[in-house]
């Protein structure tokens, strides 16, 4: 029979067993983070938008502007300070942005140095369309789907490209009736590393003139299109190239062409 004494020894051993465990270093969050949004492209001034993160369950719902920051950009070896304009936008005017240029950004916020870097891609090469017109057929007996319009470009290094199509006519006519009075005038696919993309007549919502923009992108922009999850089971930090911050600081380049969208029963409108 176990004695009272040995029972106490047993209990004591169990307690000792646990009291010997090391202390753990658990952490709490600091949600006061800056969000950067800047797309640098040749021919335009450099604009950087810097906002506060929207705090979850915070007293201040956030998303507010951050003013009076000392934001510097390095371009061609020189650091220059941006000027605050309005609505969280900082601008560096009179700077000539060219393909291949490298940029660095740096500023201090919430006792942290926030920085990032990027470069301007070269413009897309040999961007062309197999047709300058997209015909919208009338679906019915004897219907023949028209050949898709093929957009092609040169991409031997598998760089990221994205096609954005915008209806440019102010009073463009809708192809089909829609419950939405003003369906979006722009559509796009996610960035791809290929060298072609087909445009089908079903992609279009409006008749008329469309601008087809082919962007050449850096990987940090392509990563924005990754599915990051929206539930507590699969939430992960969004991809960002901002050190100690959030958002995007990237260079882009583009080429543009135009196509017309017409009804097959009407005569072609030449570009």
């Amino acid at each position, binding site marked *: *029979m*176990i004695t009272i004494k*040995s029972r106490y020894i047993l209990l004591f051993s169990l307690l000792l*067993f*646990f009291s010997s465990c*090391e202390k*753990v*270093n*658990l*952490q709490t*969050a600091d*949600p006061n*983070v800056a*969000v950067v*949004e800047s*797309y640098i492209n040749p021919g335009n001034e450099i604009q950087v938008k810097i906002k506060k*993160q*929207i*705090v*979850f369950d915070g007293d201040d*719902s*956030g998303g507010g502007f951050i003013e009076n920051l000392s934001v510097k950009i390095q371009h061609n070896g020189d650091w220059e300070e941006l000027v605050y304009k309005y609505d969280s936008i900082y601008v560096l005017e009179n700077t000539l942005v060219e393909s291949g240029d490298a940029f660095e950004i740096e500023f201090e916020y919430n006792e942290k140095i926030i920085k990032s870097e990027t470069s301007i891609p070269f413009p897309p090469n040999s961007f062309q369309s197999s047709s300058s017109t997209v015909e919208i057929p009338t*679906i019915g007996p004897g*219907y*023949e*789907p028209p*050949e*898709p319009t093929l957009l092609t470009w040169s991409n031997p290094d598998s760089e*990221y490209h994205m096609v954005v199509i*915008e209806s440019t006519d102010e009073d463009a006519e809708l192809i089909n009736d829609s419950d939405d009075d003003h369906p*979006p005038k*722009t*559509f*796009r*696919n996610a960035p*791809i*590393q290929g060298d072609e993309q*087909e445009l089908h007549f*079903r992609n279009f919502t409006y008749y008329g003139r469309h601008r087809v*923009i082919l*962007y050449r992108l850096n990987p*940090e922009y*392509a*990563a*924005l299109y*990754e599915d*990051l999850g*929206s*539930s*507590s*089971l*699969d*939430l*992960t*930090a*969004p*991809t960002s*190239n901002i050190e100690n911050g*959030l*958002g995007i600081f990237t260079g882009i380049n583009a080429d543009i062409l135009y196509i017309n969208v017409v009804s097959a029963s009407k005569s072609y409108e030449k570009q």
Partner: protein
Amino acid sequence: MNKLSTTLFLLFVSLVSYGQEDILETNIDSWFCCDLDAALIDMSETYNLKFHYDKAKLKEIRFTEHPRNKPLKEVLDNICKYNKLKYFVNDDQTIWIVDKWFKRGQETVFETKVYHGASSKNNFSIAGQIVDELSHESLPFVSISVKGNTKGTISNVDGNFTLINVPTDTSTIVFSYIGYEKKEVFLSPKTITTNMLISLKQQALVLNEVNVTAEIQDVMQVSKQQAGIFKMSPIKLQTLPNLGEKDILRSFQLMPGISAANENSSGLYVRGGTPDQVLVLYDGFTVYNVEHMFGFFSAFNSNAIKDVQLFKGGFDAKYGGRLASVVEITGKDGNQKGFNIAGDVSMMSANGFVEFPIGNKVTATLSGRRSWKSPLYDKIFEQYTETEEGPQTGFRLGGGTQQTTSYFYDVNAKLTYNPTEKDRISFSFYNGKDELDNSLSPMGGGKFGGNFSIESVDETSWGNTGASINWSRQFNDRFYMNALASYSNYFSLRDKSSSGSMQNASGESTSFTRGITEDNNLLDYTSKVDFEYQLNESNHIQFGAQLTHNDIDYTYVNADTLTIIDRKTDGQIYTGYLQDKMKLFDGKLIITPGLRYNYFSETQKNYFEPRLISVYNFSDKWRIKASYGNYYQFASRVLREDVTGGSRDFWVLADDDQLPVSSSTQYILGAAYETKDYLFDVEAFYKDMDNITEYSLRVKTDRTGIDYSENFFTGYGTARGIDVLVQKKYGNFTGWVAYTWSQVIHHIDEYGDYDFYAAHDVTHELKLVGTYKWKNWDFGATWIYATGRPYTAPEGGYELTLLDGTTADFINVSVKNGNRLPAYHRLDLSANYNFKVGGKSPASIGFSIFNAYNRSNVWYNEYEIVDNEVIETPVYYLNFTPNINLTFKLK
């Protein structure tokens, strides 16, 4: 000399043969109209014959015959033919009448009364086999002990046992097995000591039978021989509340130290481990997928299971390759006495089981289960699919018809062959699969009269196939061998893509494919041999060797672009082990030092796993237990935690580069106080884990592109806790209270320089389980309370304007698992009415209520940004869900 021996032997054989023939030619001339026992007594007295048989059994057989000078042989042939018996004449001219399956050399032990004479020998051994009384299936891992002291042993997987140093030949031996009536065998100087055949009787679910006085045992049993071993009775599972199916793994979740708050996982989270850290063996082969229906049900059909035991930790050197624990499942061999059939129908599935002997040496079992559409099935299905997202196909064409098909099934088959009294060969097969097809049928083509087609595929399937061939041989009472060759395959396929073709006016066609495809395929070829040698009373030695070849492929293809992940790994694990179960201080201290050695070809390194398991019995009531062990794991399952996708995990093989071999060191210390009816058990555990791996959907970018292969994060962790169990083991009311305090901390550098609670950390977990037998009713209730699990909450969010002018929302995360969901609690109730169809076929009708008071337990939270604010919407687990099921067994 040789010639002389041969001649003497032949003479002996012919004399024996002549003697046998002589007795069997005895002419019987009598009139029998009585039971068989009375008839044999009459014959033995009239013709001076000696019979040996089971008196109680033959008393129940009616014998009406009038042989007129008929040879005894013919009379016996007639008796045996109609009663599934056989006979033979022993060397001492005794005629043995035994069951058809009886092996010569074995003797059924019938001693059921205390022998009051003096003992004639001391400290001797007994050996034999333990079987089910009705089906004569061998019973594995039965506990055998000498009444009144701590000496004891456990039968092996074939039901064979050797108990050394029995104090006297008038001792009482107690045989105890979960789901069966406890049996006491009273030895006497006349009792045989080898080839004993002990038959145990299943506890009847229907009362008012002859065994009404038998003790009713709880559905769960805790081992007295080792820390952290549980057994569950597959037969009695139906007395516990269930959600549509009797579920062996779900029932284990009611034990202390195993988390029960994961409704969507029937896998086992044991003492800070994850389900992939549990080695699941089914008839010797490893099962890699244990889940059906998004984890709501385990992949094992309880009708096909004979025995199941769980090692919560501190397991023998015989087992390895996993960090946390072991579940060993033994499939049914089949009824040796005749054909039997059983079936269940519930609101979730239909389930059939058949078993039969083939001749005198072979038995077979076959079972199958398939889900069917019902309100319960649809409810669970919708729980998982209503948030399903469409394929990421970019410009998607409308039209087509979407018809969801979904089902799961599993099949078990087993063939057992007993070629000799010492050998046993069995072949076991398992196949199970889940299929979910949410595809959009092809559209285009004829419908529009044109030349294009598009098809959207949204298919998820996963499953497991396993087979093993096993040869075991009991060389003698002390030496046993079990050799096995097995195959196991796990596959998981997820295809969310659209494909199609377009043809232009000149007849040229172009095809396209978009979306993602994931394919995980695991192959496991294992051969192993285990030996057991009872050196003496104090040393039971086990040793063996194993070779496993793993071949694991995982591909993740984004059809728009490239193959993102393409892991093809294969490797061999060479293993040897040795352990000695030593009984010291008159059997009070059982200590098992062991060593397991592995060589892993992928890393070309040696891995040593020292183990130590010990129990000290202060008395037959008090015992303390302690164990220590080192464990390595070479193949791991990586959780994607992407609930909307169906397939949520994939297996990978360590490579010492991106995925190092994970390891753990465990310490267990505990004490138990056990009376006839109650058990009080407390165990404390501490576990160090290294090279634990998590998969993250985070992506990294550099100058050349997006890198997806960096998503395996490796770190270290600790788990510690205390399990407390108070169990009422016998009586009309049985059940237990299980409480666990635990803390599971992980550290992964990629998440930051801090420790975080593992996603499966549950601080407090309390489980109350009770079953009550009243007449032919079994009532059951379980209540579970668990601290809410940690999760990573958003820290905040932001919007970015994209290049096309639209905006995209981004949810930013706070510290890893820095928040906790609300506490989880749930009450389940059940009532089963047991009856007999036609007076002999047991059947039952069961009613079960899941989540009886309709608690809204949070499963996870959804987040979105609306009007510059991050909105949280909780998604709940199953609410109040009733179920009904019917069970039938021919006999």
